[in-house]
């Protein structure tokens, strides 16, 4: 089962945790959330905007979740991404997976967020305390220096 969404409303992480399908055969649940950091590129971030190409982003996110479900034998995959204006600390993205095995739950969840960051048409504009702004490119707020492998920029 796959559930994807791009939402202008704040991501309600507690409601999404409560709203899982019945899963008596899935022992492993892994969740990833990306929260807005206060520093990026060494600059103090005040807030940021996510812009999305909704039609294509939803298609691509669905494909990623389908691939993950098949490859990692996931009983459930949910990927929700926020759009619009976000404050420091707010969740920008939430990935949830259920699997029989914990290894596959971890790897499946990691696969979805890595692929999302590499392929899904979503763009982040950072507003800094010094008044400047920037459309960040491939430098994400979670792993600016570690996660370039696997990116598929053309």
């Amino acid at each position, binding site marked *: 089962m796959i559930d994807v969404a791009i939402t202008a409303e704040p991501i309600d992480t507690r409601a999404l945790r409560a709203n899982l399908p019945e899963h008596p055969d899935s022992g492993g649940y892994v969740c990833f959330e990306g929260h807005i950091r206060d520093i990026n590129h060494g600059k103090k971030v005040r807030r940021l905007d996510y812009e999305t190409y909704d*039609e294509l982003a939803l298609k691509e996110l669905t494909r990623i979740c389908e691939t993950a479900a098949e490859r990692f034998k996931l009983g459930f995959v949910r990927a929700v991404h926020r759009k619009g204006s976000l404050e420091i600390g707010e969740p920008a*993205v939430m990935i949830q997976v259920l699997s029989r095995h914990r290894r596959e739950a971890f790897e499946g969840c990691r696969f979805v967020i890595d692929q999302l960051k590499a392929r899904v048409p*979503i*763009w*982040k504009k950072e507003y800094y305390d010094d008044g400047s702004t920037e*459309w960040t490119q*491939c430098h*994400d707020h*979670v792993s600016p220096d570690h996660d370039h492998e696997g990116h598929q920029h*053309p």
Partner: protein
Amino acid sequence: MQARIAVRYFAVLKDCSGKQSEELTVAAGARASDLYGMLAEKYAFPLGLKDIRVAVNDEFAKFDQPLNDGDKVAFIPPVSGG
């Protein structure tokens, strides 16, 4: 013959063009790469073809794909979601 194309702009391309979308007319048989070349010159886009991807009718496409009348085209700068 000519083809009417609806173009959408995102992120830095939106900032450079000053618009979210517009309707343009291209020569029949023009390719996505031709359209991008024209727009990159017109709006001084800071990205080359190697930096971006293209979507036609809300699906990833190749730059050498000929455009048809009524196509929706979007150029995709490097993504930064998550």
